[in-house]
Each structure stands twice: as structure tokens, then as C-alpha cells.
């Protein structure tokens, strides 16, 4: 066991899943999706440099990203964006002392809504990409 209390509290905040209230689960998911989205943002910007390479470079890239694997990754991205965005709005309302009564319930609603919208949105992308 680590003797450093700072490390202990950090570790228990992130990796101990037992006895976590909904608010803490929301906090963890918000951070994990946030960090994932930061990674995606820089990946996305780096890939867009292909646009600077002209039509051949971009259009050959498009053929690659129409693969089923990429569609699955797009679905995961959509789920992360939806959860982070909806939960971010929830956090803003809570921070403004609004809707505190629905703090827990709204987390579960947002989780389910994000999954449902991600499935719907991915299906839409899948159909468009066909």
C-alpha cells in the first residue's frame, strides 16, 4: 500500500468503484470522456492535415474511413460526446444551484439518453456511409 495520502486519495477517487454515489460516477465518466475527447480532438486536427495535401490525399482517406471498424469507433465517439455534453449541461445547472433535487435522477437519465442517441446517430451514419 502506498503511504502517500495524496496518491491514496487520487487512486481511490479514480479506481475504487465500490460505494460510489451517482455524482462520483458522473464525475469519473465526465473526466474520462473529457480526456478521451481531448485525445480525439488532436487526432482529428492531425488527420485534417490531409486536406492540406489536396484532393487525392483527402479522397483516398475518405475511402479508408468508410470501413465498418471506423463506424464502430464513430459510435463510441458519439457516445462520449453526448454523455460529456449532456452531463456538462447538468453540471452547469447544478453549479448554478438549479435542479438539485434531480441531481441523481438526471445522471441516470443522461446515461440512458446518451446510449440511445448514440445508437440512433450511429445507425444514421451507418446508413449514410453505405
Amino acid at each position, binding site marked *: 500500500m502506498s503511504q502517500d495520502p*495524496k496518491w491514496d*486519495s*487520487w487512486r481511490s477517487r479514480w479506481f475504487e468503484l465500490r460505494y460510489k454515489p451517482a455524482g462520483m460516477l458522473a464525475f469519473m465518466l465526465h*473526466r474520462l470522456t*473529457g*480526456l478521451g*475527447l*481531448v485525445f480525439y*480532438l*488532436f487526432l482529428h*486536427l492531425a488527420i*485534417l*492535415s490531409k*486536406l*492540406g495535401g*489536396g*484532393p487525392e490525399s*483527402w*479522397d483516398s482517406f*475518405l475511402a479508408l*474511413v*468508410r470501413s465498418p471498424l471506423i463506424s464502430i469507433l464513430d459510435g463510441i465517439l458519439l457516445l462520449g*460526446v453526448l454523455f460529456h*455534453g449532456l452531463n*456538462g*449541461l447538468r*453540471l*452547469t445547472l447544478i*453549479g448554478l444551484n438549479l435542479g438539485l433535487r434531480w441531481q441523481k435522477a438526471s445522471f441516470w437519465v443522461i446515461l440512458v439518453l446518451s446510449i440511445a442517441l448514440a445508437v440512433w446517430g450511429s445507425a*444514421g*451514419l451507418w446508413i*449514410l*456511409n453505405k
Partner: protein
Amino acid sequence: MRSSVNKHQASWGWLSQAISGILLVVLLGIHWVAQHYLAAGGLRTYAEVVSYLEHPLVLLLEIAFLVVVTYHALLGVRAVLLDLSPGKRLVRLLDAGLILTGIATVIYGINLLRLILATE
């Protein structure tokens, strides 16, 4: 808990993250729908990207999106790193690094837009 961030700084960070977050819901919503759902086949070809960006309003929205998303992302990274309770000097170093990263990212993005619009 020891913290190198005072209350005033923390609320400033919270407020600007909330405001940029709300802006992102709108800007990312527009970006996503326009780039993937309104585009034939779910993705724009090179020629379609160019003609799309030629609308001044679209260009303005994409630049606004770039600036706001970079700001929100780096402020988020800062919040996560500050939870590790770094010392004051480390926070200053981190802030300088994040500001430089943000500026470099926006310059990169605007330069890319310039390159795309210059190819026609």
C-alpha cells in the same frame, strides 16, 4: 485538501468552462450535422469541403469552433492536472505550456483553412 488554486481562480475556471461548454454544444452540433448528416454519403469530398468553407459564415463558425474547443479542452486538462495538487511553480509552468499549446493549435487550424481555400 491542499490546493494551489484559490476560490476566485476556481470559480473563474468553472464559469468560463461552463460558458465555453454551452457554446460547444451549439458549435459542435452544427459542425457534426453539417459535416456528417447534411453531406451526401456522410462525409464531404475535397471539392465539397472547399465549397462549404467558402461561405464566410461557415468559415467564421469553424474558426469559432476551433478556438472554443481548444480552450475548453486545454482548460479541462488543466483541471484534471490541478487535482494532482502540483506546487505553484509547476502550475505556472503548466499554464505556460497549455497557453502555448492552445496558440499553436489555433494557428495550425487557421493555416490549414488557408491552405484548403488557397488550392482552388
